[in-house]
């Protein structure tokens, strides 16, 4: 999909709605942990599926040789909008969750930390996607169980492997990238949202409706 299929007015609106969703999710995360959550301007790319690996590599906060953990969750809003969210974390993120859990290293085992990271990823994706989609659609968004799709895999390798999976399904990708950073405990993660190609026309209709109602 090239930019002409999503005019700049709609792209600007989508970026703003993702921005609002991120702000609300950061607030929810902050109240959960009592730490300030830093958010950056969301990146939204619309391109052909072949460009997915470079999109991930170019936009991730992690360097391409960094070993990452990737957690995926499928979402569906009444069949109108479907897609997947992917959270990327690194080893440091794993270490940084100890203060969030208020645990010392002796008290925490790796299974407990992995469970917590899964829980946290689910919370972030659920909150962010729900906060985004409820700005368009009144019905609640449903989520599939979380799935770990990469564990200690270099980001570059993961990005190209993600293409193999996506290539058979997607033609064009509307990819939104969000960062959540908690400076005090060195927590950082990326969240990529990929929209199902069949959802894109519905998303455009919804964007037009928001524009018409508000401007």
């Amino acid at each position: 999909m090239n930019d002409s299929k999503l005019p700049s007015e709609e792209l600007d609106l989508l970026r703003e709605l993702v921005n609002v969703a991120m702000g609300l999710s950061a607030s929810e995360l902050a109240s959960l942990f009592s730490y300030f959550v830093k958010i950056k301007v969301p990146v939204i790319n619309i391109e052909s599926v072949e460009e997915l690996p470079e999109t991930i590599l170019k936009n991730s906060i992690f360097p391409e040789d960094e070993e990452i953990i990737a957690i995926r969750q499928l979402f569906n809003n009444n069949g109108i909008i479907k897609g997947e969210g992917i959270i990327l974390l690194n080893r440091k993120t794993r270490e940084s969750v100890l203060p969030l859990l208020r645990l010392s290293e002796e008290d925490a085992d790796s299974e407990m930390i992995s469970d917590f990271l899964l829980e946290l990823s689910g919370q972030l994706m659920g909150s962010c996607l729900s906060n985004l989609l409820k700005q368009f659609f009144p019905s609640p968004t449903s989520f599939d169980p979380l799935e770990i799709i990469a564990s200690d895999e270099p980001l570059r390798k993961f990005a190209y492997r993600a293409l193999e999976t996506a290539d058979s399904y997607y033609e064009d990708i509307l990819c939104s990238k969000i960062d959540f950073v908690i400076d005090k405990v060195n927590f950082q993660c990326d969240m990529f949202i990929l929209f199902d190609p069949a959802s894109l026309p519905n998303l455009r209709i919804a964007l037009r409706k928001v524009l018409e109602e508000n401007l």
Partner: protein
Amino acid sequence: MAAKILIVDDSEFARKVLIKSLNSYLKDKEVEIRQAGNGKEALSTLKNGIPDLMFLDLTMPEMDGYELLDELEKQGKHFPIIVISADIQSEAVRKVKDRGVLDFIRKPVSAENLNALMEELKII
């Protein structure tokens, strides 16, 4: 003389919604509205004069709202500022209020809340 309002937000949609919401309060008041897409553009606009009121988003590219507030402090430029953001963390609110911001409105903006605040502040 027309009152000057500066709106700083990277989203054109957000700026338009804010102007539309303000119009019901401003009615026949004589007002000049300027717009900037980030902190740097705002600083450039401010070279042409200080506004009577500035609406400021926090999350923006190039220079965000916090950085702009710090820069204004450095330059000794003080004027009424209302922050408009979806980031309603208590620390975000504290951070901007520590930097002298007048008030904080949650995104998405409701014309009702905005007008109530404008009536209360009576800056314009």
